[in-house]
């Protein structure tokens, strides 16, 4: 049980440590690009920020039936939505560039 807790804690810390530079790089890309590429990366950045927030909230115990009890599962859904939207935007841009009809 203790090992499980340690493992969960460790994986969460590693995920946060990896997500933090991803946010920085995400901002870097957003500052450098424009148009559809900019929008796509903004959505990816939103997804990683939401993921980061969800991981941070996982450190804390929250009582049932409170707003925070729905926050962590909610972040997963929002993360998936942002990621999907970013991916769709990138796909549309590439389809437009490669001359698909």
């Amino acid at each position, binding site marked *: 049980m203790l090992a499980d807790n*340690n493992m969960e804690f*460790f994986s969460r810390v590693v995920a946060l440590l990896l997500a*933090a530079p991803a946010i920085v790089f995400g901002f*870097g890309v957003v500052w*450098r690009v424009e148009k559809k590429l900019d929008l796509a990366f903004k959505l990816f950045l939103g997804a990683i920020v939401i993921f980061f927030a969800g991981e941070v909230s996982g450190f*804390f*115990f929250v009582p049932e039936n409170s707003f925070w009890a729905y926050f962590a599962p909610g972040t997963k859904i929002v993360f998936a939505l942002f990621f999907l939207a970013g991916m769709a935007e990138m796909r549309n841009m590439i389809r437009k*560039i*490669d001359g698909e009809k």
Partner: protein
Amino acid sequence: MRKKTGAKNKKNIRKKTRSGIAGSRTAGRKKYFFGAGSKWLFRLASFLVIAYLAFGIFAGSELLARDLRNKYGKVLGAVNVSVLVRGMPVKPVVTADPGCDGSYPVIDLDWADDLGVDTFDVWRNGVILVAGITSSSYRDSNVDLGTTYTYSVAAHGPLGDEQSDDIFATAETEGYIPPPPPPPANLVITRLDSIDLTNFRCEARTNKKYPTFSGTTNISQARLTVVIISERGIRQVISSFTANANGYWSWKSKGKLKKGVKYVYFTAYDPDDESRSASASLRFRVKKKKPSKKFLKKCRATSLLPAGFGVAKPLHLAEGMKLSVEEGRKSVHQGEQMNFSLSGAVLGPQSKLRVGIVDDKGGLVFEREDSSAGKQVAIDKNMPSGEYKIFARYFDNGKDISAEDSFQVKERPLLILNSGREITSRQILSNLGWAALSLSGLLGIFLLLLLVEHHLAGKALFRVTGEKLKERGMID
């Protein structure tokens, strides 16, 4: 035709990229001895080593040591395997040996090693017992006495599988030593107010109208009942309470005692076995004056038993009230509601039940007449953290009947971690220095990285768009 042109274009773009843009970018860069690929490999390896060590810190060094041992063993195994010729698994011949491990029955299964086998599965009564073991023996410790089990072993190798015949084994009763019964219950009254009864040979005395008794029992979390009777046999005070996990108890009479000789009877019950109980009684006198130092000194005797012990015969309570704080929750936070259960209260038409809380010094913190709002008490948010007792009390035909249970008030946590650890504002304040330093350090690193990124982005000559990527041959 179009394909060919496309391929030609690709080649031209690649050539351009190599000689032009990419070339100009790499020209000014420092060259590494092991090359760019080695550099990234080195970084990845460093990260993995650090992560591995960090994992060791969190999960325990045992895990790392075991892991290393496993790796070492695997290397040796690999060396051995290189000289072996592995064949089909041989059908295992299993022997079962019932025995005992200490006082518990076990069945030891054994079969021959087989080089053609990677793993074994053990089946019991047609259901898998353990799978994927590599050793050629297994101890089944989950067996009931006198029960017969059917075992079989399945061998799995690279060239096939083999299953043993069923064998039968009965967990034997011979040699089984059942766990010893719990020792007989005992109960000792060790103190009456200022008098140490374990070192006292006179009649115990007190000048307090609400005397405090304490003592010990060998029953953990024992439920104790107490009755105080006057010399004329009038039952005055009846109460029940709980000992702590070590069997220590302390009880202060809720009922006011008049002057004269009294008898107090305590009975401790095992909460898991009501038939296991112990009693102790004491004859004592309530006087107006406090026992003098001279009297206390005169009565002190290390070799003699206290005079009052065993004078009155044990009295088992047939009646009484029982109060328990909500099961499994002996602590409550400031400002929360505490639930409790009350049983055995027989209220007459004139009886009024009162519920209250006293602190560890016996001081009344809160008292109310019980209402139909349910058995709940609101803990004040400003109540200091510590040990408290909740009691319920009523009068019936001159009898003072009460019951109590102890609980702990904890400071309201500001944060509760997922692991269950509670962090109070006081703890945060006491560790504010290093917590602020660590958090601001991490935040600083993050902001610094962001600043560097922003600075680098500001140096860009133009903004990148999808079309630009196409122009540069990044997207074909």
